């Protein structure tokens, strides 16, 4: 049994919330959320959540943002959670409202993002009758939630909320769904809130096994070519300092996966970049030639390993992860270290010594110099990579960057250099188009004082562009970048390289004029078609206090390199002709 301290720090508010008044389920829900420290909720009303929205109405303590689509709400909650480390919350109505959340729930599940998703449902007496706007959302989302609840009694609401927050935010984090039938949200009972959590089947392993950590240190001692593969788990555990200390002590070159970006400073000499399909030459070669691979909070996704049989063929693999099911799931693991990444590294750091890695580091440094990321720049065209580099330079790498999915996502991962965790927000596991822009809104809500840049393709921008309204109405100062290549770029790249230039349905002509689209919502719109305009427009965007959309019309034919084709091992890289 563990006690989770409630986050409501304001004492006056706390006393007010804890009054044992007889109130409706909806009011209980609100109070419970406030007691969990929730300060921003994204949602969309409907019949089944009318009692809840009635309770929200006029509640001065409850901050709710009305998005224009439920998908916008859940991606915003996700961006809020990824950028702050807190639990993201969203609310939707039954049936179509709830099913509109499915993509967002799956996105959060794949990337281990803590969310509490609240849906209304039809009257509990009507459940199972195919009632109007009924959907079995707990059933639909069972494979994509960490856990879910269908609340059957108003007395269970506060306990359920408390449990849901606990489950979402501990161990391997993830989305938890709470489905509340309409009548339950209307029933009344006396408010109570219990701090104690007792879930018998749930006890995440936090502390590592000491012997395993000793084995890891021994393996480092014996290794000549060790390498660290740091994933999103480092960021989620808040273990970036411990990782840096570990690397400083052991002198092991470090690779960050797509979600691990920011978990280790890219300015560090020992950083080798990203691995996998669009990884750097050096990162991929390092994995293939290392003799010890230490996975830290990384789950060996197939975009990282590519052909598993040929992955890290000479390496002994050690794996640090909070989720025991990840250890040995994809690659055979010699040294499993199950536990909270931060705790495992803390323990390891007590006795960590430098590896005998000088010659190996030298070899990799040479490689880094010889095969850097590069593209052919010219003064005729605006190159997408140039735009990303420009954004990096002008923001000094200090912005929170969210991306959508596609080529621009890979270029952002490659050419924007991150030195801080929680500054890079992207849909890695599910690869969800439409994610980036609403996620940026959530990130900005959670970080009102930071610059948030949302980088999108012209395809993905059209998947949740309706949320421009939210930016305009609430003056949310996200800088919205469209890398406009007039095609579904990443699909075009595959059709070119793998399907012999057979371009099937990738032409995006007929897209709206993005500048006018922004303006239609009341957001400032700018366009750039060459370097000079790009610099000017971008500076103007930075100088504008509110939201701005900048349409960067870029060279159409640019591709992302290096690239590893599916079925190849990660050192079989296409390098492009740049």
């Amino acid at each position: 049994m563990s006690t989770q301290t409630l986050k409501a720090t304001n004492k006056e508010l706390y006393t007010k919330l804890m009054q044992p008044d007889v109130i409706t389920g909806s009011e209980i829900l609100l109070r419970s959320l406030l007691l969990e420290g929730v300060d921003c909720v994204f949602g969309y009303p409907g019949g089944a959540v009318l009692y809840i929205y009635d309770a929200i109405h006029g509640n001065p303590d409850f901050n709710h943002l009305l998005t224009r689509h439920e998908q916008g709400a859940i991606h915003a909650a996700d961006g809020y959670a990824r950028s702050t480390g807190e639990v993201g919350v969203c609310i939707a109505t039954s049936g179509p409202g709830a099913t509109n959340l499915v993509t967002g729930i799956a996105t959060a599940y794949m990337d281990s993002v803590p969310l509490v998703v609240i849906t209304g449902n039809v009257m509990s007496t009507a459940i199972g009758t195919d009632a109007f706007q009924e959907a079995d959302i707990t059933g639909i989302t069972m494979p994509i939630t960490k856990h879910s609840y269908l609340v059957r009694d108003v007395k269970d609401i506060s306990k359920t909320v408390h449990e849901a927050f606990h489950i979402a935010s501990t161990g391997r984090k993830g989305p938890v769904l709470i489905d509340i039938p309409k009548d339950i949200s209307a029933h009344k009972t006396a408010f109570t809130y219990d701090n104690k959590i007792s879930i018998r089947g749930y006890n995440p392993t936090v502390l590592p096994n000491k012997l395993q950590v000793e084995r890891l240190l021994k393996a480092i001692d014996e290794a000549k070519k060790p390498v660290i593969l740091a994933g999103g788990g480092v960021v989620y555990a808040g273990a970036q300092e411990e990782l840096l200390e570990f690397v400083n002590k052991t002198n092991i070159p470090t690779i960050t996966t797509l979600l691990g970006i920011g978990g280790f400073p890219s300015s560090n000499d020992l950083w080798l970049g990203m691995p996998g399909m669009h990884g750097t030459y050096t990162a991929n070669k390092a994995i293939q030639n290392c003799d010890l691979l230490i996975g830290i909070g990384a789950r060996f996704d197939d975009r990282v390993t590519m052909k598993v049989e040929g992955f890290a063929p000479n390496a002994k693999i050690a794996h640090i992860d909070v989720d025991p099911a990840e250890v040995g799931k994809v690659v055979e693991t010699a040294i499993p270290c199950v536990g909270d990444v931060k705790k495992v590294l803390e323990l390891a750091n007590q006795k960590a010594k430098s590896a005998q890695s000088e010659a190996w580091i030298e070899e990799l440094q040479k490689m880094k110099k010889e095969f850097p990321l590069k593209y052919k720049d010219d003064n005729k065209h605006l190159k997408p990579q140039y735009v990303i580099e420009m954004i990096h330079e002008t923001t000094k790498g200090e912005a929170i960057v969210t991306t959508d999915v596609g080529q621009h996502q890979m270029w952002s991962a490659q050419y924007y250099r991150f030195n801080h965790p929680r500054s890079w927000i992207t849909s890695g596991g599910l690869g969800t188009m439409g994610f980036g822009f609403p996620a940026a809104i959530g990130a900005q809500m959670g970080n009102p004082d930071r610059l948030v840049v949302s980088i999108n393709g012209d395809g993905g921008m059209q998947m949740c562009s309706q949320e421009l309204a939210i930016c305009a109405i609430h003056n949310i100062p996200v800088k919205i970048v469209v890398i406009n290549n007039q095609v579904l770029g990443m699909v075009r790249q595959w059709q070119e390289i793998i399907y012999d230039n057979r371009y099937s349905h990738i032409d995006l002509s007929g897209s709206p004029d993005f500048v006018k689209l922004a303006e239609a919502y009341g957001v400032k719109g700018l366009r750039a078609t060459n370097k000079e305009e790009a610099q000017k427009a971008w500076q103007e965007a930075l100088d504008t206090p509110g939201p701005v959309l900048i349409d960067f019309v870029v060279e159409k034919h640019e591709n992302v390199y290096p690239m590893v084709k599916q079925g190849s091992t990660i050192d079989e890289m296409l390098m492009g002709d740049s």
Partner: protein
Amino acid sequence: MNTTKHTISILVNNQPGVLQRVASLFGRRGFNIESITVGKSEEEGLSRMIIVTTGDDHKLEQISKQLYKVIDVIKVIDISANPMVERELALIKVNAEPSIRPEIIGVVETFRATIVDIGPKSIMVQVVGDSEKVKAMVELLKPYGVIQLTRTGVAAMIRGV
């Protein structure tokens, strides 16, 4: 690695949907279910599921780890790793004109199975035992013409303490 049969005992919170959570996990992760039974356990509020599955050591480890991720799962044991008792019940309705009945009853008795119903043209046989025994009984009755067969799936427990 060699693929073998495993009997897994899973103690779960008796929550609505828990059977679905466990069964769909098997489907989604590509684990096979040969038989599945669920019923109340010795403790109020907890149920015990017995799943018979096949797989190598790697697969079995994954099954157990993935099951533990289900919040309502409390304990997972591969009981086939221990000396265990495994029982299944089957009801077999078999064609039985009065003239042939003594012969069938003979077969049933040697198996220590029982006749639980007699109709004008059929007999219902109840057999309890490990899956092999049930299978053998069914095979022996087949020549007479099996009209209907119901098997419960396996209930199992580790022997001793």
